[in-house]
């Protein structure tokens, strides 16, 4: 019986990476029409995608930078390299692999040694091997889970049917930018009635760009199906360039259930501008569970358009804004069909001059009768250098909507801290416990491994040990 190592080596040979071929895989700095054409050529894309990109590029040029939200004036669009394909993964140590990933491998029942290779540890490896073992499990139940680039080629019908329909390029300047230069991201298709047993994690897609700046994710969940997708991890992600403009489109067909969890912890020099939107059809449920702890500026407003009767939307979002950070986040629920419900919960913590802004929109269109909607946004400010803003837009055009909105802003209660200290905790520990309690509504929605990691992350943020 050959050792695991031999087994892996054999498979590697099958998918040998030929490094005698040198590809030019990087565009020049800045963005021109040629850049867009080059990207499409590198990827060997069908004609329609090139047209889509070029149309998006034209629109990108036309749109002005938004003057609301955070300060975008420091982004130099001409300095960015818009496409970069890593030819090899860098070496990593097993310690670098995030806890929750290790735990997931455990769940998958993959033996220790093989795990190390899967995580890309050690000498050269080939990502194709890794990738296949995960995909096999899923393809048995008909689930498609692959990189967006690959899906465009292997599943063109379904891809083309939905791509760009939830977030069109004309939506905003950064959606246009993403539409022009997108690369990487996930494509998920879950067939009718299938319940995906494990959360799908972006980390599994180790081939191709993992955390590309302009990733584009498309998730289509067919009728009655169910899936949980998790993106990001708590380890800080150091980006080569400082702009991350991603687009996530989710289509939840009738009766389906989709949960999309994001934990964002970009390094503090990154501009994180994301357009995330879902279309929820009849009796479907879409949940955005969203944490924003990193980046210099995040502008992200997960949205759900409730298009079918009986659809349900839920957004649970937390933002932690420390020194030099601005988390400008929120949620949008647009009720277009009757008997739909939405629930938005937003929690933010700001300290050391950090700024947390909640920007939300709740809209009930005529014809959307019997809507129940609620919004709860609470902000905790730890000191008077920080800032908290709340801008909710509530627009109701039906006469039987039941909608409530509550917002509070406050600081940590001195009595609570005192009480906990009298029970033996240090001041820091007490504060931390209170903050964790404040964010509990979010953390309890995370899978256990993530929850533990997330709490640890928040604790570190509070101590200011993260740069």
């Amino acid at each position, binding site marked *: 019986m050959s050792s695991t190592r031999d087994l892996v080596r054999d498979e590697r040979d099958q998918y040998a990476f030929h490094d005698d071929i040198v590809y030019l895989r990087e565009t020049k700095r800045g963005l021109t029409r040629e850049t867009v054409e080059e990207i499409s050529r590198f990827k060997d894309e069908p004609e329609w995608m090139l047209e889509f990109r070029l149309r998006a590029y034209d629109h990108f040029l036309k749109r002005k930078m938004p003057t609301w939200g955070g300060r975008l004036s420091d982004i130099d669009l001409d300095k960015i390299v818009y496409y970069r394909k890593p030819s090899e993964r860098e070496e990593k140590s097993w310690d670098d692999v995030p806890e929750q990933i290790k735990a997931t491998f455990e769940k998958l029942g993959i033996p220790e040694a093989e795990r190390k290779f899967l995580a890309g540890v050690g000498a050269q490896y080939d990502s194709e091997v890794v990738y296949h073992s995960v995909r096999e499990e899923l393809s048995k139940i008909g689930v498609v889970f692959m990189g967006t680039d690959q899906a465009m080629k292997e599943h063109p019908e379904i891809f083309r049917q939905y791509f760009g329909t939830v977030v069109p390029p*004309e*939506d905003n300047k950064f959606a246009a930018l993403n539409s022009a230069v997108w690369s990487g991201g996930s494509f998920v298709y879950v067939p009718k009635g299938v319940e995906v047993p494990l959360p799908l994690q972006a980390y599994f897609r180790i081939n191709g760009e993992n955390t590309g700046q302009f990733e584009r994710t498309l998730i289509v969940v067919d009728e009655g199906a169910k899936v949980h997708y998790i993106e990001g991890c708590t380890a800080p992600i150091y980006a080569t360039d400082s702009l991350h403009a991603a687009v996530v489109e989710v289509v939840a067909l009738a009766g389906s259930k989709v949960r999309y969890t994001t934990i964002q912890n970009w390094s503090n020099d990154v501009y994180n501008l994301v357009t995330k939107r879902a279309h929820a059809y009849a009796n479907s449920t879409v949940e955005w569970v969203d944490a924003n702890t990193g980046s210099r500026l995040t502008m992200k407003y997960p949205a759900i358009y409730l298009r079918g009767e009986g659809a349900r939307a839920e957004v649970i979002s937390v933002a932690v804004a420390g020194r030099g950070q601005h988390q400008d986040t929120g949620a949008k629920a647009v009720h*277009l069909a009757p008997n739909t419900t939405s629930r938005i919960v937003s929690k933010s913590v700001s300290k050391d001059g950090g700024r947390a802004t909640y920007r939300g929109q709740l809209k009930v*269109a*005529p014809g959307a009768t019997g809507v129940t909607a609620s919004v709860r946004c609470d902000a905790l400010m730890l000191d008077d250098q920080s800032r908290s803003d709340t801008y909710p837009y509530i627009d109701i055009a039906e006469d039987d909507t039941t909608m409530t909105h509550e917002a509070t802003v406050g600081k940590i209660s001195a009595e609570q801290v005192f009480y906990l200290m009298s029970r033996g905790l240090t001041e820091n520990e007490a504060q931390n416990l209170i903050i964790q309690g404040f964010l509990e509504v979010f953390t309890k929605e995370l899978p256990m491994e993530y929850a533990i990691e997330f709490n640890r992350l928040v604790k570190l943020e509070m101590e200011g040990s993260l740069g």
Partner: protein
Amino acid sequence: MTRRIDLVAADAVGEGEMQMVWTDGGASPVLVLRSGGVLHALQGTCSHEYFELDRGFLTRGTVTCPLHLSRFELDHGEPLDPPADLPLAVYPIVEEDGRVFIEVPDGPLAVNEG
């Protein structure tokens, strides 16, 4: 001088349905819809930001552009919800022999754009 443009078969557009017809050799999109039993023909793109309105939402006598949620009433194309403030051009409908036409002045189809 006016001209007639043939759009669709009348029974191709059911109640609550919208269809886009690309007239003038594909240059001028026209949105045809039926609401409350009545056929309407309007400019096919939003007057606020370019977007094809057949991908929008038809709810109780109004059409909403999904891009920024501008909303328009159907009789005169007047904007009801921001950010649009220009109306959608409305084209007079003529039904004949089971087909739906619009009767418009000569020249390129009138369209309002932001």
